[in-house]
């Protein structure tokens, strides 16, 4: 695209980009409870949504918020909540119910350091919670991991599309860096964006609204996750598993310089972009090294990783004590060595801190 034709960029935080993306993508309802480092999301939406005839409710707790999300989602209305780690833990029951009842909705987790109250610094410690279900029962969230403010904006469109296509909770998993970073963002819907009206039409046969809205002979409709009759829950779970299998085609990733690489660094989110700087630096110094950044954490881009395994070693770098590394190992399935470097949650690191461990892996 010619730069002259491009709309002006705005300088906004990742949190602000989430809020703008949500409104531009067609969000109608927001429910949330304040927690650092994501407060700009509710703050901005409390202004924007009422201006766009939308709904903003500051809930009494994260438990209240996620259940309001369940209610609005059950009505087939684009809705979201946002929080950070501890608050997301409180939401898990509701998220599990949403998954069990096929209710669409968006949950943004600008995560913080844990366990417990932890800190408000960068951390990727909620990876397992996000991608392995998080709540009780066999359920999955679709998980997107933005690494820039622009992705925070763009992924709100993606999240809404996925939520309504699959009638499933979608989580945006960020951290204090992507939440607080200010970057230029182009506030235009990404290519391929479908209208909110179209997305809502995808759940017409499932949403609750009062049966009268569906015509004369309409029958009452029920959204639920309880199946007590013998065999009913098994059938319900089979259906969910088929849906999760369908989701696999949504796997997204970002690849750089992997073709001739002997070592591929695997990192996601904020660490993914920090690792990119380190990889470029080492590449300039003549090392044959590449970067693989999973963009969807569930579904995990395991086929793409597996395809790279032949003749390449992997180094997983993540800001936790080793979570995504397990998924990389499962994807590679022993075909090549998977090394791992942990950045402790709460630390602010630059690219230089990653150069040494990458060099060690190169030489190791």
């Amino acid at each position, binding site marked *: 695209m010619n730069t002259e034709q491009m709309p002006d960029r705005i300088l906004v935080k990742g949190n602000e980009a989430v809020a703008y993306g949500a409104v531009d993508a067609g969000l109608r309802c927001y429910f949330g409870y304040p927690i650092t480092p994501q407060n700009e999301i509710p703050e901005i939406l409390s202004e924007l949504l009422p201006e766009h005839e939308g709904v903003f409710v500051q809930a009494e707790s994260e438990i209240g918020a996620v259940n309001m999300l369940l209610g609005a989602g059950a009505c087939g209305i684009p809705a979201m909540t946002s929080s950070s780690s501890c608050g997301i833990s409180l939401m898990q029951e509701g998220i599990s119910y949403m998954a069990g009842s096929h209710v669409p909705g968006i949950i943004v987790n600008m995560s913080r350091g844990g366990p417990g109250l932890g800190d408000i610094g960068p951390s990727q410690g909620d990876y397992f919670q996000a991608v392995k279900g998080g709540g009780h029962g066999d359920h999955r969230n679709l998980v997107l991991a933005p690494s820039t403010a622009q992705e925070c904006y763009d992924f709100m469109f993606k999240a809404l599309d996925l939520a309504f296509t699959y009638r499933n909770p979608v989580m945006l998993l960020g951290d204090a860096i992507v939440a607080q*970073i200010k*970057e230029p963002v182009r506030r235009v819907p990404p290519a391929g964006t479908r209208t909110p009206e179209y997305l809502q039409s995808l759940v017409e046969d499932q949403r609750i609204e009062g049966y009268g809205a569906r015509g004369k002979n309409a029958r009452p409709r029920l959204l639920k996750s309880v199946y007590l009759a013998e065999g009913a829950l098994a059938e319900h779970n089979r259906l969910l598993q088929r849906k999760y299998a369908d989701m696999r085609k949504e796997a997204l990733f970002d690849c750089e310089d992997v073709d001739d690489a002997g070592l591929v660094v695997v990192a996601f989110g904020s660490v993914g972009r920090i690792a990119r700087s380190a990889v470029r630096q080492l590449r300039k110094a003549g090392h044959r090294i590449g970067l693989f950044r999973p963009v969807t954490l569930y579904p995990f881009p395991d086929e793409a990783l597996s395809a790279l395994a032949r003749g390449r070693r992997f180094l997983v770098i993540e800001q936790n004590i080793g979570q995504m590394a397990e998924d990389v190992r499962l994807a590679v399935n022993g075909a090549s060595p998977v090394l791992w470097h942990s950045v402790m949650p709460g630390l602010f690191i630059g690219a230089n801190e990653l150069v040494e461990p990458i060099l060690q892996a190169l030489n190791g």
Partner: protein
Amino acid sequence: MLRYQDVIIAGFGGQGVMLIGNLLAQASMEQELEVTFIPVYGVEMRGGTANCTVVLDSLPIGSPLVREPMSTVVLNEPSLAKFQPRLRKDGVQIVNASLIARELVDTTIRTVYIPAHDIAHGIGNVKLTNMVALGAWLKATDALPLKAVREALHRVVSAHYAKLIPINAVALEAGYNFADSYAHKNTQN
């Protein structure tokens, strides 16, 4: 043409380090550069210093965080103590002479030792210390035209304070000119 530049701006909370970080980021964006601005929160906030990191590049930016910056703007002594040892040996630092003793400054590092507070006082408002320092940084690094930053003031300063934009521009210029003559003086020495 600029390839890459980064800076850590640090001082007491209230000295306006976030404001000039934002201003620099806004001006960079308006110059069609890629830019990241990140305020660093943490325990150090309670230790008396606030800081932010700005990275500018003509290419998409990887890491928005920098351990060993190419440049710093330090407005108080705790910030000098924290960031001077981390500054790259070929880097440059803007040091607020009004609040930082000269003997603390590492003489092996390229430094603009500028009485930013006093210059701001001379202009009429000590709150302009940050703008004076940013002006000096612009000259010392040649990262962006002064004009671009002056223009960006209109987007960064809130409408409520719009009447203060001209005096902010004066402060930027004063810092820029100081660094200019400072550089000449140092060359002559």
